[in-house]
């Protein structure tokens, strides 16, 4: 029998040797999250990594480091995870028993002696087939436990042989006269997921071997071919490896002849093992030097390849002698110090003193000539800032420092100091210009970001008029109900989503929910736009007096309103007043002639709408570009609209309005319409973009809320407005864990809610922002935090249909219940207790406390607060009576 042998390097586990100098290590991804323009701003969570700091903190936080408690003030410790590639050498073998056994079967045996969960992944090739296509073997060939993979391979586990000291084998039996030409396989180790191939190809065992007599091709191989006890058979590695060349070879297949052979391969199995190295720096009180201690759980010889730097120059240098014992100087550039085996044999450690003048220490671990372990976090050298001793100082103890969560906010301070140190350090180095450029950019970005933040806060618009309104909002003064506020205790339900028109029977369907909505505590439902419309959703109205729409017929609508009224819920109609689609074209073929009962012509269209050749006056607001914008400055238009609204109040029974796109015309006209139609409640959609500077959402959104408040002011307070500002700020606060955004500079809520709560209709989602449109979707999974906010705060909260009828319903019902129980109303007094990185807490009307955010919070004070609701990152307490 011929015996072949080959070396199979399975996983290259060798890292390139460490370079000198840290610049590789000073790798820096600077945050500068620059969300894209547009309403929906995806926020990338920027993360800055520098050296090993980030990972170090994480690691240290998980595992308190022994020894750190001795002198907590004067020591710190960093623990770095290491990934070490451990190799196990062994062999695999392939044996072909050509002599039939008792059942007349020949067999192929594949085995190996390395521990693991070995799988033979194999297939066969038939005679006369060229190429390397596999086929599945006939079922009688498959050993028990085989699993077919797709339609061309089989996976069969190797089984450990009894009394074999860890030898695994699998046997494949076949008939001597099988038509199968060869068995192809690779070995797979399931635990590491490693595949073992043969020189990058499949192993191939020819079953229809050539006759003896050929010159062993293995002669030119680096591994000898050994004749086995079946000496008359020849096999060599070469023919294994390139069977395509040998099998169809000139010797021909004059007769089926199974060659028995045995071949061994060297197998190197690589495993990654998790280890740690802990670096502890203490201040040595006697010598005023620093005691640096390395501790790792890697067994065997471990060398640290290290250097120091001054003034954070990030330039490697060698400290003067004496060096620690067993230290070699490596090319005058670094020191290599052999760590000492720990007494218990589980790893190595070493400690030595360093002069206090050094500000940093670099190191890489070296296991052998080819194995260097570097910082997993960034693939570069480890860096320990020795100045941290001073910075963290003797006042802070380790316990306080370590458990910092690794998120970007908490790092910001450190990062900046790191960046700063790097600037100093790096800028002093020549030859690192390119790196410096990158760094500069990062620093400049950070500076820009800070400037933008400062700018947005300083650029505070005048809010005098608003503060006057807030005073008007004094809850101690009894307020008559007005259409801007309703009763003051209203809770709104948006009764549709973007898909509601699809059934054609929405009014009927919604009507069935009336009882449920009522029992949940809603007082107002906002129904979809009812008119004849070019678009099925209803927001492109055409004939305003035709109330048959994709949501249902006019009669169904009337019935719906009746049902809701019976359930004690007011109904808002969605009135689209800004634009109206024309029925007819003018002489130029432009669609600007209206039909129906309001048969306006192009005089009703604003003059500055470029697409519709209006002959009216200029628009008093922004233009909606898809349809002719109505010129509200024309008296006949206003009269017609007033008449229409009154008709809807009377005919349909609507109690009030949700006014679409009120940005498009002056709020003063809205006041006109509301005074004419005398609604119970009205709310306008004034939606424009929040303020962003240099791509970051500004902390100060006063300009944004000012625009909304200005609009409400123009309506003379006869309408509320959706608090888009609050929604936007909630997005940023929740998504990025920046809960400090939820308090403005004066300690009030930062949205319209903070300035004119009674007119703020708070919401977190609607048919545009969410539903199937998703123009500006609320942070996923944080909806309950959002509702915990708006349903406990002043203002009039609106809940989106999709949220009510979802898994969120029980919690939302709970919130509404609390709101009603505690009689929170649109002018309730709010006191913000906390607005921090990951915590916002507020007290409302001195009878309810809520918090959102991951940080722990408990109400304090003599009162007895009881938990009323609690969930992921939110909690609500109420005063127990």
């Amino acid at each position, binding site marked *: 029998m011929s015996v072949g042998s080959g070396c199979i390097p399975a996983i290259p586990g060798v890292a390139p040797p460490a370079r000198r100098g840290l610049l590789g290590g000073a790798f820096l991804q600077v945050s500068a999250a620059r969300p894209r323009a547009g309403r929906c701003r995806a926020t990338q969570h920027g993360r800055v990594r520098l050296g090993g700091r980030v990972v170090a903190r994480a690691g240290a936080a998980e595992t308190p480091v022994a020894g750190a408690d001795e002198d907590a003030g004067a020591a710190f410790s960093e623990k770095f995870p290491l990934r070490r590639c451990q190799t196990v050498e062994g062999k695999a073998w392939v044996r072909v028993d050509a002599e039939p056994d008792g059942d007349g079967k020949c067999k192929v045996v594949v085995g190996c002696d390395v521990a693991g969960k070995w799988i033979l992944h194999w297939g066969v090739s038939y005679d006369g087939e060229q190429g390397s296509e596999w086929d599945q073997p006939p079922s009688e060939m498959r050993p028990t436990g085989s699993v077919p993979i797709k339609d061309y391979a089989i996976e069969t586990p190797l089984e450990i042989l009894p009394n074999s000291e860890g030898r695994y084998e699998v046997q494949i039996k076949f008939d001597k006269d099988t038509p199968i030409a060869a068995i192809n396989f690779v070995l797979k180790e399931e635990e590491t997921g490693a595949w073992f191939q043969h020189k990058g190809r499949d192993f191939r065992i020819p079953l229809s071997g050539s006759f003896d007599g050929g010159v062993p091709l293995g002669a030119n191989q680096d591994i000898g071919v050994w004749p086995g006890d079946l000496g008359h058979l020849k096999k060599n590695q070469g023919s294994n490896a390139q069977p395509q060349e040998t099998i169809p070879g000139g010797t021909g297949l004059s007769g089926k002849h199974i060659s028995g052979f045995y071949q061994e391969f060297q197998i190197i199995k690589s495993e990654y093992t998790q280890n740690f190295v802990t670096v502890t720096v203490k201040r040595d009180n006697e010598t005023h030097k620093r005691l640096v201690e390395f501790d790792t759980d890697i067994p065997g010889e471990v060398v640290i390849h290290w250097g120091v730097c001054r003034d954070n120059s990030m330039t490697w240098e060698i400290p003067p002698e004496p060096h620690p014992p067993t230290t070699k100087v490596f090319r005058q550039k670094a020191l290599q110090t052999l760590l000492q085996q720990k007494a218990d044999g589980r790893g190595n450690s070493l400690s030595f003193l360093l002069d206090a003048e050094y500000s940093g220490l670099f190191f890489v671990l070296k296991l052998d000539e080819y194995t260097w372990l570097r910082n997993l976090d960034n693939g570069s050298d480890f860096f320990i800032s020795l100045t941290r001793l001073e910075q963290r100082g003797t006042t802070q103890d380790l316990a306080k420092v370590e458990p910092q969560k690794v998120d970007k906010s908490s790092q910001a301070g450190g990062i900046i100091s790191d960046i700063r140190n790097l600037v100093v350090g790096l800028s002093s180095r020549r030859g690192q210009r390119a790196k410096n450029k990158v760094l500069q950019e990062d620093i400049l970005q950070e500076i820009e970001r800070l400037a933008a933040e400062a700018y947005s*806060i300083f650029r505070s618009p005048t809010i005098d008029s608003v503060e006057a309104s807030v005073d008007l909002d004094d809850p101690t003064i009894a307020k008559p109900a007005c259409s801007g506020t309703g009763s003051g205790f209203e809770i709104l339900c948006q009764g549709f989503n973007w898909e509601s028109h699809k059934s054609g029977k929405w009014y009927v369907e919604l009507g069935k929910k009336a009882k449920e909505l009522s029992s949940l505590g809603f007082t107002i439902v906002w129904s979809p736009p009812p008119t004849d419309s070019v678009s099925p959703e209803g927001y492109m109205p055409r004939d305003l007096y035709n109330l048959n729409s994709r949501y249902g017929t006019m009669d169904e609508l009337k019935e719906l309103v009746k049902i809701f009224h019976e359930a004690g819920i007011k109904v808002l109609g969605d009135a689209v007043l800004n634009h109206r689609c024309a029925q007819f074209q003018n002489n130029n073929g432009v669609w600007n002639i209206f039909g129906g009962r309001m048969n306006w012509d192009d005089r009703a269209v604003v003059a500055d709408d470029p697409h519709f050749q209006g002959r009216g006056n200029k628009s008093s607001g922004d233009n909606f570009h898809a349809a002719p914008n109505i010129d509200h400055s024309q008296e006949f238009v206003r009269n017609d609209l007033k008449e229409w609204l009154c008709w809807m109040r009377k005919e349909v029974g609507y109690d009030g309005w949700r006014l679409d796109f009120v940005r498009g015309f002056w709020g003063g006209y809205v006041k006109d319409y509301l005074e004419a139609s005398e609604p119970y409640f009205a709310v306008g959609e004034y939606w424009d973009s929040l303020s962003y500077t240099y791509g970051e959402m500004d902390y100060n959104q006063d300009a944004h809320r000012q625009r909304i408040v200005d609009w409400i002011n123009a309506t003379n307070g006869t309408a509320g407005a959706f608090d888009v500002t609050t929604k936007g700020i909630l997005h940023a606060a929740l998504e990025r864990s920046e809960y400090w955004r939820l308090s403005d500079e004066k300690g009030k809520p930062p949205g319209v809610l903070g300035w004119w709560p009674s007119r703020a209709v708070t919401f977190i989602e609607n048919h545009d922002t969410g539903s199937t449109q998703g123009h500006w979707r609320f942070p996923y999974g944080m909806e309950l935090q959002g509702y915990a906010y708006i349903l406990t705060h002043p203002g009039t909260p609106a809940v989106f249909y999709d949220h009510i009828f979802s898994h969120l319903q029980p919690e939302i019902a709970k919130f509404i219940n609390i709101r009603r129980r505690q009689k929170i109303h649109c002018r309730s007094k709010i006191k913000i207790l906390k607005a921090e990185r990951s915590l916002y807490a507020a007290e409302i009307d001195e009878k309810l406390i809520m918090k959102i955010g991951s940080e722990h919070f408990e109400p304090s004070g003599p009162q007895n607060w009881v938990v009323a609701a609690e969930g992921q990152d939110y909690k609500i307490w109420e005063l127990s009576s």
Partner: protein
Amino acid sequence: MDASPTVTLRHASAAAWGTVRTRHAVDARRDAPTRVAFRRGCSRGDLVRAAGLGRFFGAGDQGSSKSHEVTRSQPQVDDLAPARLYVGLPIDAVTDGATVNSAAAVAAGIRAVRLLGADGVELPVFWSVAQPESPDRFSWAGYKAVADMVRAEGLSLRVSLRAHGTPGAGVPTLPSWVTGVAVDDPDIFFTDRSGGRHDGCLSFAIDELPVLHGKSPLQLYEAFFRGFANEFEDFFDDSTITDVTVGLGVHGVLRYPSYPPGSDARKFTGVGEFQCYDKYMVSQLRRHAEEAGHAMWGLSGPHDAPRYHESPDSCGFFRERGGSWETPYGDFFLSWYAGQLVGHGDRVLGMASAVFAGKPVELSAKIPFMHWWHGELSRPAEAAAGFYKSNKKNGYSPVAKMFARHGCTMIVPGMDVCMNKQLHSAGSSPDQLLAQIKNACRRHGARIAGENASLAMTHSSSFSRIRSNILTTELMRPCHFTYQRMCADFFSPDHFPQFLEFVRSVVCGEWDEDDEEQRGMMAGSNGNAREATKAA
């Protein structure tokens, strides 16, 4: 002088720095002729400061220590110690004593300053904010909060202690309990010829008169300064506060309020009027005239002086040829008028240097930068503001001498003022004025520092002007420069990018390869220039 702790600290930091610059600073301070211990150009002990302006000079400074030894006997005015760069915090950062306005923005601004690599920030501290209600109670919390932010960022802090508020700062110019006195005695305020009063601006003549609830303004200033010194002791101890700027008059500037009452001093570029008509000033003038033997001269101010906005030639007093200013009377009056100013400065600075003696800070005070009408022989605008010396000599000389006596750095707030046509028509000459101020300081051994008059919004040339004033000047280079000041416009996209460029160009010279070369050249030329100076 309790200087030894400071020296120790310095050595500690020298070890950390290991730079020539620091050692140089130590040497410099050893025989600093000042009464207040001061430190310069270096950072707090263990913190490695980012490249300041000093870093820019640091390279050129090598080997200059020796040459410096030679001139050591001279006052420290030509000290080539590196200039420090400060940025002014918002004027209204603290307006009610207990809170920081726009705290997040202030914090962001401070952090940005740190990233920019500047040395520190300047914080105006107003008397009316710190002691708003009564002479018995101080409220420092707001200022402390800001100082904490600065310390947390590891920056230096220059505090400007201002007895008089600034319009636009959102604070009263004086504490209300002081202003209340004026109801009964309106003459405590500066008064012009027509009886117009500068509400909130205490006359120099009452400095030592117990007219404010039984105390003199000087005593109250001292209580304010001492209150600050005690309250911020640990900020002095850890050298967060490196500079104390003493406000010597309205807007923190040593001058008469020669502009029209109620107007914005910063926008006024007229000649102005003499402010010597409150009863206390008039009585001092009378006494002075009697002593001088010209009792008639002391009855009132000059009768022929121009009105605020009139041209100097419109009336007799400041007329270029044959004006009253050249007459013995004119000299008598102007000398007395200027002397009152210097006397006031002397009193307040003397008190301040006593209060801050032993603290490791540099004392400074601000003078006006009145470049308009500087082309006139009579220097009318400066004379009306109190800067005059007989015989057409340097009007800044008496002030510089007084500053030097107290070891006080003179802050010149016009490093950005460029010549332009508009100003030229009003006889403006910023270059000459700066040279004149420098000459005065050089003669008397007072150091100077710089500020900008306004945000460099309109002229980007302002930045290059600043650069040349603080970097390339050979003699009397400012020892620090403060860019005034953070506000909405400062951070606006119209301004901030330019400012960023400016700072990069002066602070982080080595950021770019090009700059690196430039720096080399600059250092070389500096060295040569210095050699040349010595030879001369």
